[in-house]
């Protein structure tokens, strides 16, 4: 599904990714772990097409397409979703209006007719209920005055609405208490099908107790230094990242 080859990327004149190779197959959950400053967030930024990050070398192929030639919205339409580490506030725009615009744009790009208002609201209600969110949440302005946990839950709600093929969770577990973490994990697991894949970026192991990855990578100083199974999580927990 996703193939990253020799990816080098920089912001300004600082090179952050120094040759990443990563292949993710259909239905797989990959964890990318690493200390602060390893380049984890840069990887998610480059995958989603954030401006300011420049790819200087390497390729990214997503479902047979050259991802690096696609705009952020095109990547979303193709099924990529990023749960932001720091979700952005959009005053004056309700969650309903925001999701309506997002869904309508994607359906249009896919050549599908727009959902009827009733259908949209029903879908939204279902997804909110599954994440145990108060329906009044839909009326609130996007992320304005939300607690850390509410922001992350809102990200997972948007993910559930957009049903991405590849979900990237960037430090979604940071700042969550155990209850919120479980809800987020349930949301991620609900999307776990043989067709969908996820990348979970984290420097904790907490979320990975609830969402068990198939493959674990350790990212350090812009390179993947080790790849393995779940046993790596335990090794990191007991001995940290210095061993790699």
């Amino acid at each position, binding site marked *: 599904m996703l193939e990253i080859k020799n990816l080098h990327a920089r912001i300004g004149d600082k090179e952050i990714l120094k040759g990443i190779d990563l292949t993710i197959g259909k239905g797989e959950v990959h964890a990318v772990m690493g200390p602060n400053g390893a380049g984890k967030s840069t990887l998610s930024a480059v995958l989603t097409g954030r401006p300011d990050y420049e790819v200087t070398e390497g390729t990214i192929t997503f479902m047979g397409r050259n991802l690096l030639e696609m705009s952020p919205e095109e990547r979303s339409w193709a099924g990529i979703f990023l749960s932001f580490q720091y979700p952005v506030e959009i*005053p004056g725009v309700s969650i309903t209006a925001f999701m309506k615009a997002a869904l309508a744009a994607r359906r249009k790009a896919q050549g599908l007719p727009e959902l009827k208002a009733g259908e949209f609201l029903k879908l939204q209600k279902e997804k909110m209920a599954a994440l145990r969110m108060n329906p009044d949440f839909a009326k609130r302005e996007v992320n304005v005055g939300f607690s850390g946990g509410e922001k992350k839950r809102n990200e997972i709600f948007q993910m559930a609405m957009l049903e991405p093929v590849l979900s990237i969770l960037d430090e979604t577990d940071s700042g969550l208490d155990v209850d919120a973490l479980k809800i987020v994990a349930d949301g991620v697991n609900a999307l776990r099908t043989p067709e969908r894949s996820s990348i979970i970026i984290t420097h904790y192991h907490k979320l990975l107790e609830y969402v068990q990855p198939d493959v674990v990578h350790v990212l350090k100083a812009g390179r993947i230094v080790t790849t393995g199974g779940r046993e790596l999580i335990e090794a990191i927990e007991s001995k940290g990242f210095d061993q790699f």
Partner: protein
Amino acid sequence: MGHGKYIDPICGESYKVAAGETLRLSYVILPGESRSIDVAVDLTGEGAALELTALYLSGADETVRIRTLVHHRVKNCHSRQLIKGIAGGSADVRFDGVIVVAPGADGTEALQENHNIILSDTAKVETLPQLEIYADDVKCSHGATVGRLGEEELFYMRSRGIPEKEAKVLQMLSFISPVVPEGREEEIAAALTKL
């Protein structure tokens, strides 16, 4: 005028607000017109209040002038002014806002905010807030900014599949939402696309 160097509006509006009353003023300038708003408000009775909002959406070679003079003459008057707008094209916008707090007008609360977004290198926005305070027990604040549409918000929306152009419109709607009068949302949303 007892204080300040502000010159009385020549062909503007002026209001006196009596004790315990609240004056609400709301202005909208849409693309396609050059306009001056010139308004003076005298808070003359104790506990008088002013709530003022103004919105401009200006493009092409339009000129917009907004001048407000709010005079707190007696105790315990409140005023809140929020002026927001978006300038594109070669629009030329200027805001002058003067708040005068007279001697003895203790308990005054005066708030003035002027925030502007420019969409092009050729648009020009000047903002000149002024406070003249002659009383002691006063809460006054003013803020003025001129900026561009935020990259973070734009990327957030695009990452959800909202196309860039539409995302910018949503972002502009978000920015102006506090000064959009009730019932005019659709008209103003449509006007935004003309910038």
